[in-house]
């Protein structure tokens, strides 16, 4: 009896479809401006994608829109050298990311969770590095790796890259570790955990979002840098992708299909990776970075 009288209560806070539409419409001017900005951002990229499927004759007819038939041979012509460069980049990038994550986490943790003599001075010393122009250090570092006979080696790229990224990573990790409630650590300490266990079992698992952000920032840096590989590497077959795509622009500059296909292939791995990690990357930044 009672049951028939009581209608299922509507959740007053549920967001219905019409409500969602109203929200979008209410901010239509904001969305419009953002839409225009997005279009300007994406047009050059989309045009490159279109042109990667054209042969040279099609490219010279017009370059804004795609044209049929699609030519895939640009990709097959660019693949041999691009694949070599991509493999090199992965060889340099993977250890750089691992080292940067470990060292940054340790350093950021120490600054976020401990008070100790000299803390401010040591922190300032690391802050100083962020303000140090990397290009200044290139010359002594070059003579250094030559004296160690490290030219063309993986460590000549990986270790300096990690050193570049650690100060920024330390900042990111410190900000993140500071947001963790002190109670977690107090509780674990009362339960008898030692300092390394606090770091390993509590701080690190909670830091995964920040790790994702730092990993992507480091990844981007080591994919993008061209100065140091140009100096430290003498062998064309050791060049990373950031230098590899430059070769297309000069030696085969008339082969537009292959050139644009090379640009697309150089961008695709990170685009794919990012599509899987976008949420984590942005979650790690949500704690914010501040000076």
């Amino acid at each position, binding site marked *: 009896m009672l049951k028939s009288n009581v209608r299922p209560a509507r959740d007053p806070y549920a967001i219905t479809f019409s409500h*969602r539409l109203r929200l979008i419409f209410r*901010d239509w001017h*904001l969305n419009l401006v953002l839409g225009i*900005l*997005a279009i*300007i*951002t994406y047009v*050059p990229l989309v*045009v*490159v994608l279109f042109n990667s499927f054209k042969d040279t004759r099609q490219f*010279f007819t017009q*370059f*804004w829109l795609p044209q049929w038939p699609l030519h895939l041979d640009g990709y097959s012509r660019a693949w041999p050298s691009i694949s070599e460069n991509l493999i090199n980049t992965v060889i340099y990038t993977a250890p750089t990311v691992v080292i940067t994550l470990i060292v*940054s986490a*340790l350093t950021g943790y120490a600054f976020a969770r*401990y*008070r*100790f*003599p000299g*803390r401010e001075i*040591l*922190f300032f010393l690391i802050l100083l*590095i962020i303000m140090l*122009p990397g290009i*200044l*250090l*290139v*010359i*002594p*570092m*070059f*003579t250094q790796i030559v004296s160690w006979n490290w030219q063309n080696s993986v460590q000549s790229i990986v*270790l*300096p890259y*990690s*050193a570049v990224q*650690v100060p920024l990573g*330390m*900042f990111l990790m410190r900000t993140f570790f500071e947001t963790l409630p*002190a109670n977690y*650590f107090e509780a674990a300490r009362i339960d008898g955990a030692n300092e390394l266990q606090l770091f390993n079992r509590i701080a690190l698992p909670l830091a995964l979002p920040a790790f994702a952000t730092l990993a*992507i*920032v480091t990844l981007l840096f080591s994919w993008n840098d*061209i*100065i140091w590989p140009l100096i430290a590497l003498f062998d064309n077959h050791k060049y990373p992708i950031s*230098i590899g795509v*430059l070769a297309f*622009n000069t030696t085969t500059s008339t082969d537009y299909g292959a050139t644009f296909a090379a640009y697309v292939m150089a*961008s695709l791995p990170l*685009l794919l*990776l*990012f599509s899987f990690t*976008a949420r984590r990357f*942005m979650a790690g*930044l*949500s704690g*914010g*970075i*501040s*000076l």
Partner: protein
Amino acid sequence: MKNETQTIAPARIKPRVNRGSIPIYIPYLFLIPAFILLTIFRYIPAVSAVFHSFTQWDGTSEGTWVGLQQYQTAFADPVFMRSMSNILVYTLARTVLTTVMAIIGAELVYNITSVGTRHFWRVVFTVPLVIPTTVVYLIWRRVYSGDIGLLNDFLGFIGLSSLEKPWLGNSDTALGALIFVGFPLVSSFGFLVLLAGLENLPQEVNSAALLDGCSRFRRIFAIDLPAIRGPLAFVAILSINAGLQEFAPMLIMTNGGGPVNATQSPGLYLYQQAFTYNKYGYASAIGTLLMLLTLVFSIFILAARYRRAIDVEV
């Protein structure tokens, strides 16, 4: 009586991390790996570079001490002076442009009510970040190109064909063209950092401002921007530091600082002096001047940021 002790007691509970039970050396153990790495690949090279800026050095021997001679050469070198004025213009314009566009983008997204739409725009403007910068420069070289260029084509399309020119080949427009690479620059690391900073602000302040009749525009300048000055300082310092040692766009887009040094930068000039002409001492002097410039800018920004912020911890 009982009540009094209760009110006094909570005041003593302070989140102190180091209670004295931890051995004093523990925090330093955490710092060892970083300082080993940084000493070998940052501190020693920095000291070495500054030292060698006072020498005549070809990279092989130890170099001979020449005092301030390299600096005198630098200040008398018209190409170097041109590169310095170029990079000052480039860095200031680029920093203002990227920061303003990041603020505009972040505020636009922040003011949207729907959480889903906010997330959508955040993803839209993060995706282009992962395209390799070399590829971005090469694409923008194509955008500015004189014969088959997107910009010229677009200008012709909207009836402004009189403005068409080879943007990078013209010494009047080349530096400006480099400044606008990647326009509209909403898609940037700064955008993400500032948006995260805004979204961490307590929402009560916005509600209070709204109740007090504060318009959105006034709120941006009166509340939002002062509240995110920490992230803003971070973004500005990174941008200035990157701008002052910029090297890649000049190398890739204007064939090494052309036309006629119109886009020559100290970073590129240092690279050419060291690795083309083996003038390591002179290159080190250029780098040291660049470092001094970077430090001056950074200190200026930090001073501006901490001028009134007594309440914010470092």
